[in-house]
């Protein structure tokens, strides 16, 4: 008589277990979705876009900066959170055959200047001092809000620099430079003053990778258009305007960003693939060792867009507390260890044409002087 009873009990118990299992699975699903929702720590986005070159023939640097400005605005960052610095005016320049326009594609396809651009620092105001003051927040009290970077410790900041540069420096308006050490120190000041949560630094200049070599603050990710020793090249000239319109790296970056929309799930690994050597001629580089999260889990819109996600739910969700705490200042490596970083191991390259030619010449002279026939006596 026991066996017939047991299945009933067991089946009802099994049914209860199944029900409990299904409810808990449901909760787990919500919990997973909620955790994915809160995966990034930032609550607001800022962008600092700087063009450091003056004069009409540097049209492409202004077009570079305005392309990034356009993408960033399109993906949601408002003008109040963008600090745009343009060292010269190309749109209403007297040499511009189409006033109030700055084009990025030849045949005047795309006007990146737009109809509602707001430039915060223009002309002579774009100096190294002003740039560093904007980053560190040390501005005189009379500075208007539109010229300030009012970020907090939950801000993700995108910093884009373009212009003429060299190994370890970036030229501002043909009269002064900012070095990579100064830039690294400025970012360290920002970290100590809790002015950013995560920072993405993009630079499109010649030998751009030298500018991020000296970074030592946490939560920094950097991209550059060319390695040390390489030049970043410009893309294509427009014959009507008469100058090169864009630089190659930013041109392909703009094409990549045009496909991004606010709900896009593209991540940083896609950004690292932008403009390979076949398109860019120079080798773009990136640096992620100071960044806490895996680049594959960082969305493009975490930096380029200002995504506000709201989901309404009736469920109560218990979130597990964050096991790994955010990096505090005391957890950093000691400064002495960071600053004296070992130089990057240079990869071995096979000897290039010059070395080969030189050795061929030496060997030929050797053979001519001593004659082939003498060699068998010597050796």
């Amino acid at each position: 008589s026991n066996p017939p009873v047991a299945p009933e009990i067991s089946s009802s118990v099994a049914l209860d277990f199944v029900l409990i299992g299904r409810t808990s699975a449901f909760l787990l699903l919500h919990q997973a979705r909620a955790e994915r929702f809160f995966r990034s720590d930032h609550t607001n986005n800022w962008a600092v876009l700087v063009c450091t070159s003056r004069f009409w023939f540097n049209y492409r640097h202004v077009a570079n900066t305005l392309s990034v400005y356009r993408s960033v605005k399109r993906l949601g960052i408002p003008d109040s959170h963008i600090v745009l610095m343009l060292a010269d005016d190309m749109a209403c320049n007297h040499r511009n055959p189409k006033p109030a326009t700055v084009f990025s594609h030849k045949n005047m396809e795309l006007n990146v200047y737009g109809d509602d651009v707001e430039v915060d620092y223009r002309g002579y105001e774009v100096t190294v001092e002003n740039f560093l003051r904007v980053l560190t927040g040390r501005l005189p009290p009379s500075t208007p809000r539109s010229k300030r970077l009012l970020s907090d410790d939950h801000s993700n900041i995108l910093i884009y620099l373009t212009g003429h540069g060299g190994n370890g420096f970036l030229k501002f308006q043909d009269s002064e430079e900012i070095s990579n050490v100064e830039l690294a120190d400025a970012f360290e000041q920002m970290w100590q003053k809790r002015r950013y949560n995560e920072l993405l630094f993009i630079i499109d200049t010649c030998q751009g990778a030298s500018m991020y070599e000296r970074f030592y603050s946490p939560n920094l990710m950097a991209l550059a258009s060319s390695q040390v020793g390489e030049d970043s090249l410009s893309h294509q000239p427009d014959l009507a305007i008469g100058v090169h319109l864009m630089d190659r790296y930013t041109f392909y970056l703009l094409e990549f960003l045009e496909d991004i929309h606010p709900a896009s799930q593209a991540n940083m690994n896609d950004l690292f693939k932008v403009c390979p050597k076949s398109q860019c001629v120079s080798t773009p580089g990136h640096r992620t060792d100071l960044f806490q999260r895996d680049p594959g889990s960082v969305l493009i819109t975490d930096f380029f867009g200002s995504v506000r996600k709201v989901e309404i739910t009736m469920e109560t969700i218990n979130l597990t507390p964050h096991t790994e705490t955010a990096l505090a200042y005391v957890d950093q490596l000691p400064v002495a260890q960071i600053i004296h970083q070992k130089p990057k191991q240079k990869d071995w390259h096979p000897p290039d044409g010059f070395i080969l030619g030189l050795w061929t010449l030496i060997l030929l002279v050797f053979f001519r002087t001593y004659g082939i026939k003498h060699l068998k006596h010597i050796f």
Partner: protein
Amino acid sequence: MPTLTLASARSPFRDEFAEELAIRPLHSGDIHASFQFRTVWGVDLLQATDPRFLRYAILPREIVCTENLTPWKKLLPCGSKAGLAVLLKSEKLFHSSYFSQAVHIRPVCQGMHCTVPSWEMRQTLNVVFDLYTSGQGKREWSMFKIKIYVDVTDSPQGELFELSPPTPLLSQAVVLGDRRTYSVYDLTDPGTFGKVRSLNLLVRWKADNGDMLRPLLHGERYVAGFGLQTGEIHTLIYNNHPYRAFPVLLLETVPWYLRLYIHTLTVTSKNRENKPSYIHYQPSKDRLRPHLLEMLVQLPPNSVTEVTVQFERALLKWTEYPPDPNHGFYVGSSVLSALVPSLVAMDTNITQEHPLFSSFFLCKEESSYFMRVYTEPLLVNLPTPDFSMPYNVICLTCTVVAVGYGSFYNLLTRTFQVEEPSQSLAKRLANVIRRWRGVPQL
């Protein structure tokens, strides 16, 4: 947006906003368009306007582009989304012969008794479209959709240009001392639109010539002289009134690096010296303060008055030069302010419905109006050093020192010793290999 009617004296004053567009076809085929936006707040925003806190500032080198227009449009109540501001497209506005935008804020009286203090913000935008360079070619101009006043004084019977659609509504106003007739298109009146929901204003030119009325007061300024040491600033003031003389206040602000010689200041009209009735001069202080020169000059009728002053150019310090010093340095415009007698009596009854552009400056006198004219800014070259010279000097002196001192040092300290010639490297290497092979050496 239509103008709200004024409330009666009992009810509280409300904020109001008015906008209008005045179009004036010019004889050359250009179109002058003037947008006026007026916002009045019925509150006392600022407590006092103490003239001791008055400051005058000028930025002579300020390029005006869409980046200036965007915050200007944001001051309008609806931005650029509704109203006449929808017409402000930057690509059309900046491809023009002349562009000017302004914001004026001042306290105004509302009503005859001035009991309620209110503040008025007036935004104006003036643009002259040059049709030939914008590529249209035909002498035709049309505008879609939109109080619009078109100046038809020059062509009352339609000789100079033809306006379509025709409107029977005409109004007269005195603008800048000249009585002009306007065809009015009232956008708040549904009868203007007819069956179609949009208004397409078309101006078609017929005749080719005609005389333009010259303004009664205008000015020019230029720099004379040659070289980078001295120069002369000439300001020409034209009085085109046929029979009336009037005084004009000339305000010049010259930066400190043009050192003015005020003892060379001369004012001549009709080849005769014209002594100003009032001069105020504040000298400059290097790197602190510019020159301030104010003069009240009586302009004889139908004449040209020339004000000249000589100056010397200063050499700036190394770090004071801008990044592009060979472009030159700008000197701000001089300002001519005058009560110009008009040829026509004006109507000072302010409660009537006037177009905004005529009611900006109201005067008590019936026969003169206030005008402020800005001359062109000047561009002067200062003596500019060659900024590559420190690098050149370092290279040259280091080379000279190395060559000269190096040779001298060698002469003093080098000694010669006799030495046996050693075997060449090839022979030595061959000997090493022979030793290893066990073969007799060379």
